């Protein structure tokens, strides 16, 4: 042992010192770890993906209505899509009305971007509720790309992307950001109430609705749909489904604010076998000059 080269004898202390430095160094200095993290995910995916597929076969992901027949599910999915389109159109109408108003005052109008949807299987999960997807910058993904499941159920955003892989943070993850949403108080969606939803970490989100914002004729009820209406998210993601109201809690501290617990229509967003990535069909940087 005494005759080992110096580098061998000091390899352990040097490694420990380096790990300490890396652990406490600022985020900006650790960007080089991205490449190693991407390679690690690529190495692990050939074993993690088959296990995930096997698990999905043994324990199929829960669906919203297990008793419904295949035909009923297809019709319901079509209905969801049409409703989402209707609400998006209505929301787009409101936005365009505002934009026309701005245009008349000389403001620019942003072009309405088409969306292309890319379905990709979930390879596995990562520690901390992240999902690991095998596609990346090669298909135009960027940080913030919207991810859905079942066409209209919002899953989350791409939180990190490299050449061929990406990680997605579901909206229900405890470390996910708050999102602004709207509760559809009636079937047509003409009556809505805004709320700010906070993920609880158990697959649900909690939000508070100010009573003053709600018309007395309409009440917040269990089962009502909650949809995205947040300016922090892309325009094409507005009115995507966040979930339905699972329960309404009494707020003793602020009795005028009803507290709602929202659960996505997919029981566990971390266990979906496939996700759909929604990308703008046109590169915004190339279409900047178009009206």
């Amino acid at each position, binding site marked *: 042992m005494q005759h080992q080269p110096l580098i061998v004898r000091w390899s*352990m202390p040097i*490694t420990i010192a380096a790990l300490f430095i*890396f*652990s*406490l160094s600022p985020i900006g200095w*650790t960007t080089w770890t991205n490449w190693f993290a991407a390679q690690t995910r690529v*190495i692990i995916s050939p074993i993690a993906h088959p296990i995930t597929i096997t*698990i999905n076969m043994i324990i199929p992901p829960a669906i919203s209505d297990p008793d419904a027949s295949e035909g009923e599910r297809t019709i319901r999915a079509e209905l969801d899509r049409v409703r989402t389109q209707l609400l998006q159109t209505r929301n787009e109408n409101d936005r365009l009305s505002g934009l026309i108003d701005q245009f008349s005052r000389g403001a620019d109008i942003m072009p309405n971007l088409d969306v292309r949807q890319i379905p990709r299987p979930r390879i596995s999960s*990562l520690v901390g509720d992240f999902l690991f997807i095998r596609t990346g910058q090669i298909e135009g993904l960027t940080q913030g790309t919207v991810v859905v499941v079942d066409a209209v159920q919002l899953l989350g955003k791409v939180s990190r992307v490299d050449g061929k892989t990406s990680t997605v943070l579901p909206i229900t993850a405890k470390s996910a950001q708050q999102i602004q949403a709207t509760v559809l108080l009636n079937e047509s969606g003409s009556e809505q109430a805004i709320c700010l939803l906070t993920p609880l970490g158990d697959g649900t989100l909690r939000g508070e609705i100010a009573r003053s914002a709600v018309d007395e004729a309409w009440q917040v009820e269990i089962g009502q749909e909650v949809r995205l209406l947040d300016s922090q998210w892309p325009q094409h993601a507005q009115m995507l489904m966040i979930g339905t109201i699972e329960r309404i809690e009494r707020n003793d501290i602020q009795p005028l604010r009803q507290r709602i617990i929202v659960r996505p229509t997919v029981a566990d967003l971390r266990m979906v076998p496939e996700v759909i990535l929604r990308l703008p069909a046109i590169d915004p940087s190339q279409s900047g000059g178009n009206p």
Partner: protein
Amino acid sequence: MNWFVFAFVAWIIFGLELALIPIFDAGSGGVHPSMVIPLMAFCALYASRKQALWAAIILGIFMDLVSPMAHLDGGSVVIVGPYALGYLLACHFILAIRGSLIRRNPLTLVIISIASSFIAQVVVIAIFTARDLGSNPLVWDAGDQLVQRSFSSLYTGLSALVLSILFFALAPAFGFHSSVPTRFARHI
């Protein structure tokens, strides 16, 4: 220790770790058993001191690389070090007490997995909390994490119990030959 067998088993264990997280999650967000800790504990029980420490560091670095932390801007970052140092300290703990342990009893692996997981998680929490003292842009709540990771450590006992059967069967392939007389099993 046969490093090729270690690398192959570690690859499968990481695959299981990542694929089974949503299944074994207790539904409370973040509470799930670790598959990697029992492997680290198993190596620490049988391998030579230096090999066990290096194995812990390697497993810890890979754990760091597959454990992104949420950023306040909605992105995520990978920080190398917290798990590696946590596993190293946990391994050191096992090396310090392994002389007095009944190594071939599966319950030994269960108990030391729970204890070493708790030690490793405390180190991880300490490092991220120390980062949080400065201008930390990560989403981090030390109290919340302590509760989650403590329960995860207890939950790790379950995975250690199942994996102990596999690991003890693979001990000769790893190149582990204990010279300690055992009460519960004969040497292969």
